[in-house]
């Protein structure tokens, strides 16, 4: 608990910002690729997915952080996945009850949050070693970083594939939508080019 005493606002801010850019889960750590590619055909499902991930990430980090002293090393991963799958079930039932159409669009990608590497990675790398406050802040930072990345990717793809953002027309009449952008190929190529762009940006900064 010595870490807890030393942890001031500066550490909190540092942890929060790490998830947003320096250790951004998608661009920097290449974690959680499946949902990143699968639900980013439009901004709305991407945003819903991001919110689900934030919810599950915060809850699982809280639980793991609270039981970190009870964990046996060889049963660790199993306990993480059990905790995560419980919260994912809650999120899935919530979506089914209140936004059934969105739940249908996302389909099996909501339950697939269970095997999203971001969540297990944060449970392992942060929550199982740190106190409650740091774990929550880390979860929020990582979750928001993930959501922002999804929205950027989805924004590019939705704009190019339909000429709309948030289902509102933004491009002029002469724009011909690129149908390929809403297909798997659009997801892979856009993410590849965005990663290249991030590499260029971070190189020019340093």
């Amino acid at each position, binding site marked *: 608990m010595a870490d807890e005493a030393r942890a001031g606002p500066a550490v909190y801010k540092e942890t929060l910002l790490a998830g947003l850019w320096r250790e951004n889960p998608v661009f920097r750590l290449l974690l959680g690729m*499946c949902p990143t590619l699968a639900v980013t055909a439009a901004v709305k499902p991407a945003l819903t997915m991001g919110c689900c991930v934030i919810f599950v990430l915060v809850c699982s980090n809280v639980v793991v952080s609270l039981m970190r002293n009870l964990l046996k090393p060889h049963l660790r991963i199993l306990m993480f996945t059990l905790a995560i*799958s419980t919260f994912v*079930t809650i999120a*899935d039932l919530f979506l089914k009850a209140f936004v059934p159409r969105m739940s249908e669009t996302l389909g099996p990608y909501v339950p697939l949050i*269970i095997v999203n590497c971001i969540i297990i990675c944060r449970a392992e790398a942060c929550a199982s070693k740190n106190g409650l406050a740091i774990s929550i802040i880390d979860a929020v930072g990582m979750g928001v970083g993930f959501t922002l990345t999804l929205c950027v990717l989805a924004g590019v793809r939705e704009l190019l594939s339909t000429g709309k953002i948030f289902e509102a027309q933004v491009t002029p009449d002469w724009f011909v939508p690129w149908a390929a952008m809403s*297909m*798997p*190929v659009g997801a892979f190529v856009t*993410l590849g080019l965005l990663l290249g762009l991030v590499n260029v940006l971070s190189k020019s900064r340093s």
Partner: protein
Amino acid sequence: MDTVTALLLAFISIVLINNLVFTKFLGICPYLGVSGRIDMAFGMGLAVTFVVTLSGTLTWLIDNLILMPMHLEVTRYVCFILVIAGAVQLVEMYVRKFFPSLYKSFGIFLPLITTNCAILGLCLFINLWEIDSLIDAVVRSFGAGIGFTMAICIMAGIRENLNLADVPACLKGAPITLITAGLLTLAFMGFAGMIR
């Protein structure tokens, strides 16, 4: 004869047309992580094929014989992940006992099959497609594994050649792999509409 044809079509459909990697974005992490060398990729593909066949069959049985009659669908995800973790543990023990050298070369990737989205994803898709016969579920699970093996081996072959190519500095590594994967999916889109 009809059942045999239907099963054959289901198999071809999941290997080529609904390939988990190319159309459903499942199993991307090992697809990008282990596809550096073709022998590793093939071994990984075989391990995944075994686990996915086993867990696809088991989860279908559990879902249809235990969860649905007892109206316990709420616990479906928890049960599925337990079955998969168990199956992976089984494979790990088996490989460690009988193929120690293979076990060493896999390293961390073997336990990580648990968190391979292709496996849980396939179990969920089998549930979603409302497949009502055991043999159909087995064939589709096996086909999904073969499809994954094929995808990861094609990718490994391309990446071995990519090492010699002159790629712009900012695209080296993951970005160019993703773009290559994108072009591959474009090629596989040619199979779309072949069946249904």
